[in-house]
Protein backbone atom coordinates (compact mmCIF):
# COMPACT_ATOMS: atom_id res chain seq x y z
CA UNK A 1 0.00 0.00 0.00
CA UNK A 2 2.57 2.51 1.17
CA UNK A 3 5.06 1.51 -1.49
CA UNK A 4 2.59 2.10 -4.28
CA UNK A 5 2.00 5.60 -3.07
CA UNK A 6 5.73 6.34 -3.00
CA UNK A 7 6.42 5.22 -6.50
CA UNK A 8 3.67 7.32 -8.00
CA UNK A 9 4.76 10.38 -6.08
CA UNK A 10 8.43 10.06 -6.87
CA UNK A 11 7.65 9.49 -10.50
CA UNK A 12 5.92 12.80 -10.54
CA UNK A 13 8.77 14.57 -8.79
CA UNK A 14 11.58 13.15 -10.91
CA UNK A 15 9.91 14.05 -14.13
CA UNK A 16 8.41 10.73 -15.13
CA UNK A 17 11.69 8.82 -15.14
CA UNK A 18 11.47 5.27 -13.87
CA UNK A 19 12.09 5.18 -10.15
CA UNK A 20 15.06 3.28 -8.73
CA UNK A 21 17.27 3.16 -11.81
CA UNK A 22 20.72 4.63 -11.94
CA UNK A 23 19.66 7.13 -14.54
CA UNK A 24 17.19 8.66 -12.17
CA UNK A 25 19.77 8.72 -9.36
CA UNK A 26 22.40 10.43 -11.39
CA UNK A 27 20.16 13.11 -12.77
CA UNK A 28 18.29 13.94 -9.61
CA UNK A 29 21.07 13.05 -7.15
CA UNK A 30 18.38 12.33 -4.61
CA UNK A 31 17.32 9.08 -3.08
CA UNK A 32 14.03 7.79 -1.89
CA UNK A 33 13.84 5.49 1.11
CA UNK A 34 11.35 2.80 1.87
CA UNK A 35 11.00 0.95 5.17
CA UNK A 36 8.50 -1.85 5.39
CA UNK A 37 7.63 -3.77 8.55
CA UNK A 38 11.03 -3.21 10.12
CA UNK A 39 11.56 -4.92 13.47
CA UNK A 40 14.59 -4.57 15.68
CA UNK A 41 15.29 -5.70 19.19
CA UNK A 42 18.29 -5.93 21.47
CA UNK A 43 19.44 -8.35 24.10
CA UNK A 44 19.44 -12.11 24.61
CA UNK A 45 16.35 -14.23 24.25
CA UNK A 46 15.59 -14.17 27.98
CA UNK A 47 16.06 -10.41 28.24
CA UNK A 48 14.71 -9.40 24.89
CA UNK A 49 13.86 -5.78 24.37
CA UNK A 50 11.96 -4.89 21.22
CA UNK A 51 12.78 -1.38 20.10
CA UNK A 52 11.18 -1.11 16.66
CA UNK A 53 8.07 -3.07 15.78
CA UNK A 54 6.51 -3.21 12.32
CA UNK A 55 7.78 0.20 11.40
CA UNK A 56 6.82 1.22 7.88
CA UNK A 57 7.73 4.54 6.46
CA UNK A 58 8.56 6.06 3.11
CA UNK A 59 10.74 9.04 2.53
CA UNK A 60 10.30 10.82 -0.75
CA UNK A 61 13.17 12.14 -2.84
CA UNK A 62 13.87 15.81 -2.30
CA UNK A 63 11.77 16.02 0.84
CA UNK A 64 12.71 16.74 4.40
CA UNK A 65 11.07 14.22 6.67
CA UNK A 66 11.20 14.98 10.35
CA UNK A 67 10.85 12.22 12.92
CA UNK A 68 9.70 12.99 16.44
CA UNK A 69 9.01 10.61 19.27
CA UNK A 70 9.27 10.26 23.02
CA UNK A 71 12.79 10.12 24.40
CA UNK A 72 14.25 6.63 24.27
CA UNK A 73 11.64 5.32 21.86
CA UNK A 74 14.18 4.11 19.32
CA UNK A 75 14.91 7.06 17.07
CA UNK A 76 18.65 6.52 17.12
CA UNK A 77 18.09 2.81 16.58
CA UNK A 78 16.13 3.69 13.46
CA UNK A 79 18.95 5.93 12.27
CA UNK A 80 21.48 3.14 12.82
CA UNK A 81 19.42 0.79 10.69
CA UNK A 82 19.00 3.20 7.81
CA UNK A 83 22.67 4.12 7.94
CA UNK A 84 23.51 0.45 7.75
CA UNK A 85 25.47 0.20 11.01
CA UNK A 86 23.06 -2.47 12.13
CA UNK A 87 20.71 -4.77 10.25
CA UNK A 88 17.01 -5.20 10.98
CA UNK A 89 15.76 -8.45 12.53
CA UNK A 90 13.00 -8.57 9.98
CA UNK A 91 11.49 -6.28 7.39
CA UNK A 92 13.09 -4.39 4.57
CA UNK A 93 14.92 -1.14 4.10
CA UNK A 94 15.22 -0.12 0.46
CA UNK A 95 17.10 2.80 -0.97
CA UNK A 96 16.04 3.47 -4.55
CA UNK A 97 14.82 -0.07 -4.64
CA UNK A 98 17.97 -1.81 -3.39
CA UNK A 99 18.29 -3.13 0.15
CA UNK A 100 20.68 -1.62 2.70
CA UNK A 101 23.49 -4.03 3.58
CA UNK A 102 26.00 -1.74 5.25
CA UNK A 103 27.14 1.85 5.53
CA UNK A 104 27.75 3.67 2.28
CA UNK A 105 28.62 7.09 1.06
CA UNK A 106 25.19 7.58 -0.49
CA UNK A 107 23.79 8.00 3.02
CA UNK A 108 25.47 10.38 5.39
CA UNK A 109 24.76 10.54 9.06
CA UNK A 110 25.20 13.57 11.26
CA UNK A 111 25.35 12.04 14.67
CA UNK A 112 23.66 12.90 17.92
CA UNK A 113 27.09 13.15 19.52
CA UNK A 114 29.82 14.97 17.68
CA UNK A 115 31.87 12.52 15.66
CA UNK A 116 34.57 14.77 14.27
CA UNK A 117 37.78 12.87 14.79
CA UNK A 118 39.86 14.80 17.35
CA UNK A 119 43.21 14.06 15.69
CA UNK A 120 42.37 15.95 12.53
CA UNK A 121 41.82 19.68 12.18
CA UNK A 122 38.38 20.96 11.23
CA UNK A 123 39.57 21.28 7.65
CA UNK A 124 41.05 17.78 7.50
CA UNK A 125 37.83 16.42 8.94
CA UNK A 126 35.76 18.10 6.26
CA UNK A 127 37.88 16.94 3.32
CA UNK A 128 38.35 13.44 4.74
CA UNK A 129 35.68 11.72 2.64
CA UNK A 130 36.44 13.13 -0.83
CA UNK A 131 40.18 12.80 -0.23
CA UNK A 132 39.89 9.09 0.52
CA UNK A 133 37.55 8.32 -2.32
CA UNK A 134 39.47 10.46 -4.80
CA UNK A 135 36.26 11.34 -6.58
CA UNK A 136 37.12 15.04 -6.72
CA UNK A 137 40.30 16.69 -7.85
CA UNK A 138 42.41 18.29 -5.08
CA UNK A 139 41.67 21.76 -6.43
CA UNK A 140 37.98 20.99 -6.49
CA UNK A 141 38.10 19.67 -2.93
CA UNK A 142 39.83 22.80 -1.73
CA UNK A 143 37.40 25.07 -3.49
CA UNK A 144 34.36 23.23 -2.17
CA UNK A 145 35.76 23.10 1.35
CA UNK A 146 36.60 26.80 1.37
CA UNK A 147 33.11 27.61 0.18
CA UNK A 148 31.59 25.45 2.89
CA UNK A 149 33.72 26.96 5.64
CA UNK A 150 32.55 30.34 4.43
CA UNK A 151 28.92 29.18 4.58
CA UNK A 152 29.16 27.73 8.06
CA UNK A 153 31.18 30.72 9.25
CA UNK A 154 34.26 28.84 10.40
CA UNK A 155 36.90 30.27 8.08
CA UNK A 156 39.18 31.42 10.90
CA UNK A 157 38.81 28.12 12.69
CA UNK A 158 39.54 25.69 9.94
CA UNK A 159 43.01 24.81 11.21
CA UNK A 160 41.87 24.28 14.78
CA UNK A 161 41.36 20.84 16.26
CA UNK A 162 37.79 19.86 17.21
CA UNK A 163 38.54 19.95 20.92
CA UNK A 164 39.52 23.59 20.51
CA UNK A 165 36.11 24.48 19.08
CA UNK A 166 32.90 25.21 20.98
CA UNK A 167 30.02 22.74 20.78
CA UNK A 168 28.15 24.86 18.24
CA UNK A 169 31.21 25.23 16.04
CA UNK A 170 31.72 21.47 16.11
CA UNK A 171 28.16 20.95 14.94
CA UNK A 172 28.67 23.37 12.08
CA UNK A 173 31.92 21.71 11.07
CA UNK A 174 30.10 18.42 11.09
CA UNK A 175 27.41 19.81 8.82
CA UNK A 176 30.12 20.98 6.44
CA UNK A 177 31.70 17.54 6.52
CA UNK A 178 28.39 15.92 5.61
CA UNK A 179 27.59 18.41 2.88
CA UNK A 180 30.86 18.24 0.98
CA UNK A 181 30.02 14.64 0.13
CA UNK A 182 26.76 15.67 -1.54
CA UNK A 183 24.91 12.65 -0.19
CA UNK A 184 21.76 11.56 -1.90
CA UNK A 185 20.27 10.99 1.52
CA UNK A 186 21.27 12.88 4.62
CA UNK A 187 20.30 11.48 7.99
CA UNK A 188 20.51 13.79 10.96
CA UNK A 189 20.07 12.51 14.51
CA UNK A 190 19.17 15.44 16.74
CA UNK A 191 21.92 17.51 15.20
CA UNK A 192 21.23 20.61 17.26
CA UNK A 193 20.75 18.95 20.62
CA UNK A 194 22.73 20.63 23.36
CA UNK A 195 22.98 24.01 21.68
CA UNK A 196 21.64 27.06 23.47
CA UNK A 197 18.36 28.52 22.20
CA UNK A 198 20.03 31.32 20.27
CA UNK A 199 22.56 29.25 18.34
CA UNK A 200 19.96 26.58 17.83
CA UNK A 201 17.72 29.06 16.07
CA UNK A 202 20.59 30.31 13.95
CA UNK A 203 21.57 26.79 13.02
CA UNK A 204 18.00 25.89 12.11
CA UNK A 205 17.72 28.87 9.83
CA UNK A 206 21.13 28.18 8.33
CA UNK A 207 20.30 24.55 7.76
CA UNK A 208 16.93 25.42 6.26
CA UNK A 209 18.53 27.75 3.70
CA UNK A 210 20.93 25.00 2.69
CA UNK A 211 18.17 22.49 2.35
CA UNK A 212 15.94 24.78 0.33
CA UNK A 213 18.80 25.51 -2.02
CA UNK A 214 19.78 21.90 -2.79
CA UNK A 215 16.72 19.95 -1.78
CA UNK A 216 18.60 16.79 -0.92
CA UNK A 217 16.50 14.08 0.65
CA UNK A 218 16.73 14.47 4.39
CA UNK A 219 15.68 12.49 7.41
CA UNK A 220 15.77 14.75 10.41
CA UNK A 221 15.35 13.24 13.86
CA UNK A 222 14.52 15.64 16.63
CA UNK A 223 12.78 15.85 19.97
CA UNK A 224 11.60 19.43 19.42
CA UNK A 225 8.23 19.64 17.71
CA UNK A 226 8.59 23.28 16.72
CA UNK A 227 11.91 22.57 15.10
CA UNK A 228 10.34 19.69 13.19
CA UNK A 229 7.41 21.78 11.97
CA UNK A 230 9.67 24.64 11.00
CA UNK A 231 11.91 22.45 8.84
CA UNK A 232 9.87 19.55 7.57
CA UNK A 233 7.74 18.70 4.58
CA UNK A 234 6.39 15.74 6.45
CA UNK A 235 6.31 15.05 10.13
CA UNK A 236 6.45 11.45 11.34
CA UNK A 237 5.30 10.88 14.90
CA UNK A 238 6.56 7.69 16.49
CA UNK A 239 4.95 5.79 19.31
CA UNK A 240 6.58 4.94 22.58
CA UNK A 241 8.98 1.97 22.66
CA UNK A 242 8.59 -0.42 20.82
CA UNK A 243 8.29 2.22 18.15
CA UNK A 244 6.03 2.24 15.13
CA UNK A 245 4.63 5.11 13.12
CA UNK A 246 1.66 6.70 14.89
CA UNK A 247 0.94 9.42 12.39
CA UNK A 248 2.36 11.17 9.37
CA UNK A 249 1.44 14.83 9.13
CA UNK A 250 1.99 16.75 5.91
CA UNK A 251 3.34 20.17 6.75
CA UNK A 252 1.97 22.51 4.15
CA UNK A 253 3.70 25.69 5.18
CA UNK A 254 5.11 27.42 2.13
CA UNK A 255 8.81 27.65 1.34
CA UNK A 256 11.04 29.52 1.83
CA UNK A 257 10.11 29.24 5.45
CA UNK A 258 10.31 31.96 8.01
CA UNK A 259 10.21 31.88 11.82
CA UNK A 260 6.99 33.87 12.03
CA UNK A 261 5.17 31.09 10.16
CA UNK A 262 5.44 29.13 13.39
CA UNK A 263 2.87 31.46 14.96
CA UNK A 264 0.30 30.90 12.23
CA UNK A 265 -2.86 28.96 13.12
CA UNK A 266 -1.87 26.29 10.65
CA UNK A 267 1.40 25.63 12.43
CA UNK A 268 -0.42 25.68 15.74
CA UNK A 269 -2.81 23.00 14.46
CA UNK A 270 0.12 20.77 13.44
CA UNK A 271 1.73 21.25 16.78
CA UNK A 272 -1.43 20.48 18.72
CA UNK A 273 -2.03 17.35 16.69
CA UNK A 274 1.48 16.02 17.22
CA UNK A 275 1.55 17.02 20.89
CA UNK A 276 -1.66 15.14 21.57
CA UNK A 277 -0.19 11.92 20.24
CA UNK A 278 3.10 12.41 22.01
CA UNK A 279 1.41 13.15 25.28
CA UNK A 280 -0.64 10.00 24.97
CA UNK A 281 2.50 7.99 24.19
CA UNK A 282 4.43 9.52 27.04
CA UNK A 283 1.68 8.56 29.46
CA UNK A 284 1.75 4.99 28.15
CA UNK A 285 5.46 4.92 28.79
CA UNK A 286 4.98 5.94 32.39
CA UNK A 287 2.08 3.58 32.98
CA UNK A 288 3.99 0.62 31.67
CA UNK A 289 6.67 1.17 34.28
CA UNK A 290 3.95 1.70 36.89
CA UNK A 291 6.36 3.16 39.39
CA UNK A 292 5.60 6.72 38.56
CA UNK A 293 1.83 6.60 38.71
CA UNK A 294 1.73 9.48 41.16
CA UNK A 295 3.67 11.63 38.81
CA UNK A 296 1.50 10.63 35.88
CA UNK A 297 -1.64 11.44 37.79
CA UNK A 298 -0.35 14.83 38.73
CA UNK A 299 0.72 15.44 35.17
CA UNK A 300 -2.63 14.47 33.64
CA UNK A 301 -4.71 16.51 36.07
CA UNK A 302 -2.52 19.47 35.34
CA UNK A 303 -3.05 19.07 31.63
CA UNK A 304 -6.76 18.42 31.63
Amino acid at each position, binding site marked *: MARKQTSTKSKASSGGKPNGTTVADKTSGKSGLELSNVCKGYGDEWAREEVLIDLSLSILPGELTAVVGPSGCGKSALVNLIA*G*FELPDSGEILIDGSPVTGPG*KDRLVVFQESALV*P*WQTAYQNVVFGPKLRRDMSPAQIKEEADKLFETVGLVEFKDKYP*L*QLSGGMQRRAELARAMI*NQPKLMIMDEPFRGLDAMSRELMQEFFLRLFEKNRRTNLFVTSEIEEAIFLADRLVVLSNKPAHVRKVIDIKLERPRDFHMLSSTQAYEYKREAMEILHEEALKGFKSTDSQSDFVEAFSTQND
Partner: protein
Amino acid sequence: MSDQAISSVEAGKAGEVRAAPKGIMLAWYRFKKSLATPDPYLMVFGIFLWLGTYYLLTEGWKVPRFEKIPGPVEVITEFFSRDPIWGTSLFTEDFHTNVYVSCQRILISFGLATGLGVPLGLFMGWSRKFKDYAFPILETLRPIPILAWVPLAIVMFSGFETPIIFLATLASFFVTTLNTLLGVESIDESYFRAAGCLGSKKHHVFWHVVVPGAMPFVFTGLQISIGVAWFSLVAAEMISGDFGLGYMIMDSYMVNKYVSMVMAMISLGFVGWITSAMVRWAGNRMMQWRVKALALEGR
Protein backbone atom coordinates in the same frame (compact mmCIF):
# COMPACT_ATOMS: atom_id res chain seq x y z
CA MET B 1 51.74 56.22 36.17
CA SER B 2 49.62 56.72 33.05
CA ASP B 3 52.77 56.64 30.91
CA GLN B 4 53.57 53.31 32.36
CA ALA B 5 50.09 52.05 31.59
CA ILE B 6 50.34 53.21 27.99
CA SER B 7 53.74 51.65 27.49
CA SER B 8 52.53 48.39 28.94
CA VAL B 9 49.59 48.44 26.53
CA GLU B 10 52.00 49.05 23.71
CA ALA B 11 54.20 46.25 24.91
CA GLY B 12 51.14 44.02 24.88
CA LYS B 13 50.38 45.02 21.32
CA ALA B 14 53.97 44.48 20.27
CA GLY B 15 53.78 41.06 21.90
CA GLU B 16 50.79 40.14 19.76
CA VAL B 17 52.46 41.14 16.54
CA ARG B 18 55.72 39.37 17.40
CA ALA B 19 56.16 36.06 15.66
CA ALA B 20 55.84 32.95 17.82
CA PRO B 21 59.25 31.95 19.24
CA LYS B 22 60.73 28.67 18.06
CA GLY B 23 63.07 25.98 19.37
CA ILE B 24 65.47 27.17 22.06
CA MET B 25 63.80 30.57 22.27
CA LEU B 26 60.47 28.92 22.92
CA ALA B 27 61.98 26.82 25.67
CA TRP B 28 63.58 29.95 27.16
CA TYR B 29 60.24 31.78 26.99
CA ARG B 30 58.50 28.92 28.77
CA PHE B 31 61.25 28.80 31.37
CA LYS B 32 60.90 32.53 32.07
CA LYS B 33 57.14 32.15 32.36
CA SER B 34 57.51 29.23 34.73
CA LEU B 35 59.61 31.40 37.05
CA ALA B 36 56.42 33.31 37.84
CA THR B 37 54.82 30.12 39.18
CA PRO B 38 55.83 28.32 42.39
CA ASP B 39 56.82 25.13 40.49
CA PRO B 40 60.57 25.71 39.92
CA TYR B 41 61.11 26.95 43.47
CA LEU B 42 59.33 23.98 44.95
CA MET B 43 61.45 21.72 42.78
CA VAL B 44 64.70 23.29 43.96
CA PHE B 45 63.46 23.23 47.54
CA GLY B 46 62.53 19.57 47.16
CA ILE B 47 65.97 18.66 45.86
CA PHE B 48 67.70 20.44 48.71
CA LEU B 49 65.42 18.89 51.28
CA TRP B 50 66.19 15.45 49.92
CA LEU B 51 69.94 16.07 49.67
CA GLY B 52 69.99 17.63 53.17
CA THR B 53 68.29 14.63 54.71
CA TYR B 54 70.63 12.30 52.88
CA TYR B 55 73.63 14.30 54.11
CA LEU B 56 72.50 14.43 57.73
CA LEU B 57 71.68 10.71 57.86
CA THR B 58 75.02 9.61 56.42
CA GLU B 59 77.75 12.15 56.86
CA GLY B 60 76.25 14.60 59.37
CA TRP B 61 74.82 12.60 62.26
CA LYS B 62 76.06 9.21 61.03
CA VAL B 63 72.81 7.52 62.02
CA PRO B 64 73.24 3.76 62.59
CA ARG B 65 72.57 1.70 59.45
CA PHE B 66 73.20 4.74 57.30
CA GLU B 67 76.83 5.25 58.35
CA LYS B 68 78.09 2.64 55.90
CA ILE B 69 76.40 4.34 52.99
CA PRO B 70 78.54 6.87 51.16
CA GLY B 71 77.20 10.37 51.77
CA PRO B 72 76.40 13.01 49.16
CA VAL B 73 79.60 14.99 49.62
CA GLU B 74 81.75 11.92 49.18
CA VAL B 75 79.79 10.71 46.15
CA ILE B 76 79.70 14.07 44.44
CA THR B 77 83.40 14.80 44.94
CA GLU B 78 84.26 11.36 43.68
CA PHE B 79 81.86 11.74 40.76
CA PHE B 80 83.50 14.92 39.53
CA SER B 81 87.06 14.00 40.47
CA ARG B 82 89.63 13.64 37.70
CA ASP B 83 91.61 11.35 39.95
CA PRO B 84 88.99 9.21 41.72
CA ILE B 85 89.93 7.33 44.87
CA TRP B 86 87.88 4.25 43.91
CA GLY B 87 88.91 4.32 40.27
CA THR B 88 85.58 5.37 38.69
CA SER B 89 84.24 8.87 37.96
CA LEU B 90 82.61 10.94 35.28
CA PHE B 91 86.00 11.18 33.58
CA THR B 92 87.09 7.56 33.56
CA GLU B 93 86.68 5.31 30.59
CA ASP B 94 84.98 2.36 32.33
CA PHE B 95 82.16 4.62 33.46
CA HIS B 96 81.61 5.82 29.90
CA THR B 97 81.60 2.25 28.65
CA ASN B 98 79.07 1.12 31.24
CA VAL B 99 76.67 3.98 30.51
CA TYR B 100 77.14 3.56 26.78
CA VAL B 101 76.57 -0.20 26.83
CA SER B 102 73.42 0.09 28.93
CA CYS B 103 71.99 2.83 26.76
CA GLN B 104 72.72 0.87 23.63
CA ARG B 105 71.02 -2.20 25.02
CA ILE B 106 67.97 -0.12 26.00
CA LEU B 107 67.84 1.41 22.56
CA ILE B 108 67.85 -2.02 20.92
CA SER B 109 65.41 -3.64 23.34
CA PHE B 110 63.02 -0.74 23.48
CA GLY B 111 63.17 -0.37 19.71
CA LEU B 112 62.47 -4.06 19.17
CA ALA B 113 59.68 -4.11 21.74
CA THR B 114 58.04 -1.06 20.22
CA GLY B 115 58.50 -2.25 16.65
CA LEU B 116 56.87 -5.58 17.48
CA GLY B 117 54.45 -4.60 20.22
CA VAL B 118 52.74 -1.62 18.63
CA PRO B 119 51.83 -3.36 15.34
CA LEU B 120 50.78 -6.50 17.18
CA GLY B 121 48.55 -4.52 19.53
CA LEU B 122 47.08 -2.55 16.65
CA PHE B 123 46.25 -5.69 14.68
CA MET B 124 44.80 -7.39 17.71
CA GLY B 125 42.54 -4.41 18.33
CA TRP B 126 41.63 -4.11 14.69
CA SER B 127 40.86 -7.71 13.84
CA ARG B 128 38.66 -9.68 16.16
CA LYS B 129 39.88 -12.99 14.71
CA PHE B 130 43.52 -12.16 15.16
CA LYS B 131 42.87 -11.21 18.75
CA ASP B 132 41.11 -14.52 19.37
CA TYR B 133 44.26 -16.34 18.17
CA ALA B 134 46.90 -14.25 19.84
CA PHE B 135 45.40 -13.02 23.08
CA PRO B 136 45.39 -16.29 25.10
CA ILE B 137 49.11 -16.86 24.50
CA LEU B 138 49.95 -13.30 25.36
CA GLU B 139 47.90 -13.40 28.52
CA THR B 140 49.57 -16.63 29.68
CA LEU B 141 53.11 -15.46 29.05
CA ARG B 142 52.61 -11.94 30.38
CA PRO B 143 52.22 -12.73 34.11
CA ILE B 144 55.50 -14.73 34.22
CA PRO B 145 57.90 -12.45 36.11
CA ILE B 146 60.85 -11.41 34.03
CA LEU B 147 63.32 -12.91 36.51
CA ALA B 148 61.75 -16.31 35.90
CA TRP B 149 62.88 -16.03 32.29
CA VAL B 150 66.56 -15.55 33.19
CA PRO B 151 67.68 -19.21 33.16
CA LEU B 152 65.76 -19.89 29.97
CA ALA B 153 67.32 -16.86 28.32
CA ILE B 154 70.80 -18.02 29.27
CA VAL B 155 70.08 -21.53 27.97
CA MET B 156 68.54 -20.25 24.76
CA PHE B 157 71.08 -17.61 23.84
CA SER B 158 74.82 -17.68 24.06
CA GLY B 159 77.10 -14.91 25.24
CA PHE B 160 76.22 -11.95 27.41
CA GLU B 161 74.52 -9.66 24.98
CA THR B 162 71.57 -11.58 23.53
CA PRO B 163 70.09 -12.94 26.79
CA ILE B 164 70.15 -9.47 28.30
CA ILE B 165 68.51 -7.87 25.29
CA PHE B 166 65.99 -10.68 25.11
CA LEU B 167 64.92 -10.15 28.70
CA ALA B 168 64.62 -6.37 28.42
CA THR B 169 62.72 -6.67 25.15
CA LEU B 170 60.32 -9.26 26.47
CA ALA B 171 59.25 -7.25 29.48
CA SER B 172 58.74 -4.07 27.56
CA PHE B 173 57.04 -5.87 24.67
CA PHE B 174 54.19 -7.15 26.85
CA VAL B 175 53.49 -3.71 28.27
CA THR B 176 53.50 -2.05 24.85
CA THR B 177 51.28 -4.67 23.23
CA LEU B 178 48.69 -4.62 25.96
CA ASN B 179 48.51 -0.84 26.10
CA THR B 180 48.20 -0.57 22.33
CA LEU B 181 45.40 -3.11 22.34
CA LEU B 182 43.58 -1.19 25.07
CA GLY B 183 44.18 1.95 23.05
CA VAL B 184 42.41 0.56 20.01
CA GLU B 185 39.57 -0.74 22.14
CA SER B 186 39.14 2.65 23.76
CA ILE B 187 38.39 4.37 20.45
CA ASP B 188 34.82 5.57 20.34
CA GLU B 189 32.59 3.53 18.03
CA SER B 190 31.24 6.74 16.48
CA TYR B 191 34.59 7.46 14.78
CA PHE B 192 34.43 4.10 13.02
CA ARG B 193 30.88 4.81 12.00
CA ALA B 194 31.72 8.27 10.73
CA ALA B 195 34.58 6.84 8.68
CA GLY B 196 32.29 4.14 7.31
CA CYS B 197 29.71 6.71 6.23
CA LEU B 198 32.35 8.67 4.37
CA GLY B 199 33.14 5.66 2.25
CA SER B 200 36.40 4.44 3.81
CA LYS B 201 37.77 1.02 3.00
CA LYS B 202 39.17 -1.22 5.71
CA HIS B 203 42.73 -0.01 5.29
CA HIS B 204 41.61 3.63 5.46
CA VAL B 205 39.94 2.91 8.76
CA PHE B 206 43.15 1.32 9.99
CA TRP B 207 45.39 4.24 9.10
CA HIS B 208 43.03 7.11 9.80
CA VAL B 209 41.08 5.87 12.81
CA VAL B 210 42.78 2.92 14.51
CA VAL B 211 46.36 4.22 14.44
CA PRO B 212 45.80 7.85 15.48
CA GLY B 213 43.02 6.92 17.89
CA ALA B 214 45.23 4.48 19.79
CA MET B 215 48.19 6.89 19.99
CA PRO B 216 47.45 8.40 23.43
CA PHE B 217 47.36 4.93 25.00
CA VAL B 218 50.37 3.80 22.98
CA PHE B 219 52.50 6.58 24.38
CA THR B 220 51.30 6.08 27.92
CA GLY B 221 52.26 2.45 27.37
CA LEU B 222 55.67 3.39 25.98
CA GLN B 223 56.47 5.48 29.04
CA ILE B 224 55.73 2.55 31.29
CA SER B 225 57.47 0.14 28.95
CA ILE B 226 60.75 2.05 28.89
CA GLY B 227 60.75 1.98 32.69
CA VAL B 228 60.13 -1.76 32.59
CA ALA B 229 62.91 -2.15 30.02
CA TRP B 230 65.38 -0.44 32.36
CA PHE B 231 64.23 -2.56 35.27
CA SER B 232 64.71 -5.85 33.48
CA LEU B 233 67.92 -4.70 31.83
CA VAL B 234 69.53 -3.90 35.16
CA ALA B 235 68.28 -7.14 36.68
CA ALA B 236 69.73 -9.08 33.78
CA GLU B 237 73.02 -7.18 33.88
CA MET B 238 73.36 -7.86 37.59
CA ILE B 239 72.85 -11.59 37.10
CA SER B 240 74.85 -12.11 33.96
CA GLY B 241 76.75 -9.19 32.56
CA ASP B 242 80.10 -8.02 31.35
CA PHE B 243 79.39 -4.30 31.19
CA GLY B 244 76.57 -1.91 31.90
CA LEU B 245 75.27 0.07 34.86
CA GLY B 246 73.62 -2.98 36.43
CA TYR B 247 76.90 -4.85 36.18
CA MET B 248 78.69 -1.82 37.68
CA ILE B 249 76.40 -1.89 40.72
CA MET B 250 76.94 -5.59 41.31
CA ASP B 251 80.63 -5.48 40.60
CA SER B 252 81.28 -2.51 42.89
CA TYR B 253 79.28 -4.21 45.62
CA MET B 254 81.35 -7.38 45.33
CA VAL B 255 84.59 -5.51 45.86
CA ASN B 256 83.16 -3.14 48.48
CA LYS B 257 83.39 -0.02 46.31
CA TYR B 258 80.17 1.45 47.71
CA VAL B 259 80.84 4.91 46.31
CA SER B 260 80.94 3.54 42.76
CA MET B 261 77.80 1.56 43.50
CA VAL B 262 75.87 4.67 44.51
CA MET B 263 77.27 6.50 41.48
CA ALA B 264 75.88 3.82 39.18
CA MET B 265 72.51 4.05 40.91
CA ILE B 266 72.36 7.81 40.52
CA SER B 267 73.42 7.53 36.88
CA LEU B 268 70.61 5.03 36.29
CA GLY B 269 68.16 7.48 37.76
CA PHE B 270 69.32 10.25 35.46
CA VAL B 271 69.51 8.17 32.30
CA GLY B 272 66.12 6.64 32.97
CA TRP B 273 64.61 10.06 33.50
CA ILE B 274 66.09 11.34 30.24
CA THR B 275 64.81 8.37 28.25
CA SER B 276 61.26 8.72 29.51
CA ALA B 277 61.38 12.45 28.85
CA MET B 278 62.40 11.61 25.29
CA VAL B 279 59.45 9.26 24.90
CA ARG B 280 57.11 11.94 26.26
CA TRP B 281 58.59 14.49 23.89
CA ALA B 282 58.14 12.18 20.90
CA GLY B 283 54.55 11.55 21.96
CA ASN B 284 53.76 15.24 22.16
CA ARG B 285 55.38 15.79 18.79
CA MET B 286 53.17 13.15 17.22
CA MET B 287 49.96 14.19 18.92
CA GLN B 288 49.77 17.92 18.42
CA TRP B 289 45.99 17.69 18.45
CA ARG B 290 46.13 16.52 22.04
CA VAL B 291 48.82 18.93 23.13
CA LYS B 292 46.92 21.89 21.75
CA ALA B 293 43.49 20.85 22.88
CA LEU B 294 44.44 19.88 26.40
CA ALA B 295 46.94 22.71 26.83
CA LEU B 296 49.80 20.32 27.59
CA GLU B 297 52.35 22.59 25.98
CA GLY B 298 55.72 22.66 27.67
CA ARG B 299 55.10 19.52 29.67
